[in-house]
């Protein structure tokens, strides 16, 4: 008989139980299996009612983020063998309301994300006849790192401030704001600053650094936030010294 490993999976079925409880499943410990494969195995073979999100299985879509032994992880990139001999505890992402089993409610994040306008803002579009907006590799380098974010929300589950203050806009939203701020084609810095320079924007952050540590895409949201703070400070002093200057 092949080796197995135990998964302690958090179950929450609102029609059945008042609060989440763990259920154990034994799954084959295949060398090339990730936690997501184990969940799929459970759903196919052991209990078809298990609910969780996933899609791409290759770290691109950002839907399979869960807590694995208390750490926010992309389950499609987290190998079972790393936890041998187990057990492995799988829970929904921390700090989000739980809808069912491993599925969390993310509407709040979506509205926060939208608030920072994560798209290219232009005062005026160039006419098509003038051709495309050119960008040098160096200009691309400025924001490329932040553009790697896949909204997996691991950083939200890692950040204590997110847990403590539900109004805090959060690491990924700020990193994505920075992705567009640093884009040479963008002209929306001011609008984003209005949202982010509020207390619930960047100033709630205490540079705990957990978001950067857990990010599976090396986006470094913590760095983005601190850089943004420095920018907000220089803007603040500038508008103090030169109140007549353009805001």
């Amino acid at each position, binding site marked *: 008989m092949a080796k197995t490993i135990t998964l302690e999976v958090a179950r929450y079925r609102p029609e059945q139980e008042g609060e989440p409880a763990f259920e154990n499943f034994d799954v084959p410990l295949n060398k090339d299996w990730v936690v997501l494969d184990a969940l799929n195995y459970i759903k196919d073979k052991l209990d078809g009612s298990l609910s969780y999100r996933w899609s791409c299985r290759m770290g691109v879509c950002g839907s399979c983020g869960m807590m694995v032994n208390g750490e926010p992880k992309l389950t499609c990139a987290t190998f079972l063998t790393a936890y041998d001999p187990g057990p492995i505890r799988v829970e929904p992402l921390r700090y989000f309301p739980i809808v069912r089993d491993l599925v969390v409610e993310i509407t709040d994040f979506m509205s926060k994300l939208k608030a920072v306008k994560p798209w290219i803002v232009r005062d005026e579009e160039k006419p098509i006849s003038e051709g495309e907006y050119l960008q040098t590799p160096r200009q691309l380098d400025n924001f490329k790192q932040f553009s790697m974010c896949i909204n997996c929300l691991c950083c939200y589950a890692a950040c*204590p401030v997110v847990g403590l203050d539900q109004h805090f806009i959060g690491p990924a939203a700020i990193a994505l704001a920075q992705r567009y701020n640093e884009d040479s084609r963008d002209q929306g810095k001011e609008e984003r600053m*209005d949202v982010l*320079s509020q207390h619930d924007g960047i*100033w709630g952050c205490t540079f705990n650094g957990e978001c950067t540590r857990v990010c599976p895409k090396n986006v470094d949201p913590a760095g983005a936030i601190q850089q943004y703070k420095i920018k907000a400070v220089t803007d*603040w*002093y500038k508008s103090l010294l030169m109140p007549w200057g353009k805001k």
Partner: protein
Amino acid sequence: MAKRSNEPFLWSLFSSGGMIAALMLPVLILLFGLAIPLEWIEAPSRESLLALVRHPLTRLVLFGLCSLPLFHGAHRFRFTLYDGLQIKHLNELIAVVCYGGAIVGTALAGYILWTLG
């Protein structure tokens, strides 16, 4: 245009104070808090310290060294209270106590340095 908060100003005090504290406090506390009391080295005489402190440049440095780290500490402690104890509803009170304390400390530092010798 939305109102901008004064957080940028407070944060600039926090970060400059943090830098000064990081660079200068360890050696001072090592000297006056440990090395001299434990007699690893001999205490400098009052005259020599006074001569050093009387120099306007030293006073300026000392003023910054007292004031900014106080604001640094106040700011950081304010957030520690929020996060560590979850008492954000006391926001106003905490802010007044923390920054108020730093302002009083700054005034005190100014007074002491001004009247010194």
